[in-house]
């Protein structure tokens, strides 16, 4: 049963990623005047309503945020640039929120392996970001065999499944512990506010108010 609310130009629907982006995203919304009560957050509801109205939030997996926004089920979303780029979703991204910073990098064994990679006919790449990895190796003209993995990406190099990995690097501790090094950073990521293309026109006033509240220009 479709329970989507009727169109209301004054009410914004925002998709938020469950996980580590949720707390800073809620703080950012609070600064903009949209407060979700502790009772709402502690409940197991997947659709929350802001205390003073004007916004509803849906809580989804990070990878699903761009999908809900691209289809227009949510007008807005807060999602990492890495996830956004991987999704290739056609949405507007008017604001860099600055939190959730991380880097995506190519990493692997130190020399001599590193020195020999450019002479390979094909480089095998273990990654959770197949689109970003594919685009990077296409840009530099290297034939890459992308091996899409769900987790523990470093293991793919340690076991010989892949020659290199493309993955998030925060402190680099995991890489160091396993004897791997960063070859090249390929993307700096932070949380973005994304906006559905039609919502941007149909709820222009409410969206502009939100953007200007936090980013007066």
């Amino acid at each position: 049963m479709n329970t989507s609310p009727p169109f209301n130009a004054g009410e914004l629907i925002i998709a938020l990623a469950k996980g580590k982006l949720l707390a800073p995203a809620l703080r950012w919304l609070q600064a903009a005047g949209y407060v979700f009560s502790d009772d709402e957050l502690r409940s197991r509801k997947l659709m929350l309503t802001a205390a003073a109205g004007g916004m509803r939030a849906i809580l989804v997996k990070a990878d699903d945020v761009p999908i809900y926004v691209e289809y227009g089920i949510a007008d807005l979303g807060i999602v990492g640039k890495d996830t956004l780029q991987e999704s290739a979703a056609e949405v507007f991204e008017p604001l860099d929120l600055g939190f959730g910073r991380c880097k995506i990098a190519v990493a692997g064994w130190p020399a001599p392996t590193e020195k020999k990679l450019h002479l390979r006919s094909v480089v095998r790449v273990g990654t959770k970001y197949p689109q970003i990895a594919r685009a990077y190796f296409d840009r530099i003209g290297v034939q890459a065999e992308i091996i899409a993995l769900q987790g523990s990406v470093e293991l793919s190099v340690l076991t010989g499944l892949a020659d290199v990995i493309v993955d998030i690097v925060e402190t680099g501790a995991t890489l160091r512990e396993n004897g791997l090094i960063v070859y090249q950073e390929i993307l700096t990521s932070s949380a973005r506010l994304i906006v559905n293309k039609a919502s941007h026109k149909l709820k222009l006033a409410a969206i502009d108010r939100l953007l200007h509240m936090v980013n007066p220009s």
Partner: protein
Amino acid sequence: MMFSSPENPTLRLPPGVKDFFFAEARQRRDLEQRLKDTLAAAGFDEIITPTLEYSDVFLLAGKTGNGRNSLDEKVYRFLDRDGNLLALRADFTAQIARIAASRFAGLPAPIRLFYSGKVFRAEPHHVGRSREKWQIGFEILGADGLAADAEAVISILAGLAALEIKHVRLAIGHIGYFNGIMAQAGITGETLHNLKYLVERKDAAGLAQAAQEFSLPAAVRTALTRLPNLHGGETILVEARALAQNDISQQAVARLEALLPLIQKHPHAGNVFFDLSEVEGWGYYTGIMLRAFAAGVGEEVGAGGRYDELISRFGANLPAVGFSFDLDLLVAAIQKKA
């Protein structure tokens, strides 16, 4: 059981195409008729174009100055038995440009045409985007003036009104505004392509970063980072004038300023606003950019604009403006309303 199909691999459909039957087919024919009647009543005449063309038509139509051809990238091509490279119709306007150049010389201008039919585009199907789209559109050929721009806007509003879609918006931009900023800064080729993509996504952070990376002058950087926010009513045009002090951008703004009085008395003019960051479209647009949106549909339900130099690529000098509605997305908007 919900589906009673027998299991048989030949029952499958390629991604991005659909069967319509019974009520869904009737609804499409009904909306098609309403749009055709509205356009016919406004003085447009029907044109029926072939489904197959030589591939060159779309290659020529989609050409840009920056080496990219987003239309040609989407064309379905194949060889016929004589070894000619053929294409499925990917764009009506490209075909109409070919026809206008070869057949319409000497006809009294403006020539008002409408069409209804399918275009075929190799879209990525990760979000279920259609590869076969039913478009209903119109073109006004041989008129470069404001009156034709206004007539296009009013025809779109009339079409949306005939379909009784309640929450709609028509965004009007002008590609000259962005082009002027690029020309002023001497930006071409791949850099221009990348900046345009960032403007299309209203990616202010990305634009600021790119401005730094390419060491763009401060004035250009300010204009580019502000561009994603240049949307709204008349006041936006004032800011737009101040931000881009080059002739091409100023002329673009002047054109929009002059358009306003011609459309603002229309009963649905409240649905229209300006958006100078509307720069997305095939490579042939030269003037106003038009994009329609409806509540409940995540992408534009129609798009078009002015293309004064397209037909001259085919050999006849006919300025023109046009627009096409996406019938399936209009149906989606109506179903959301119900």
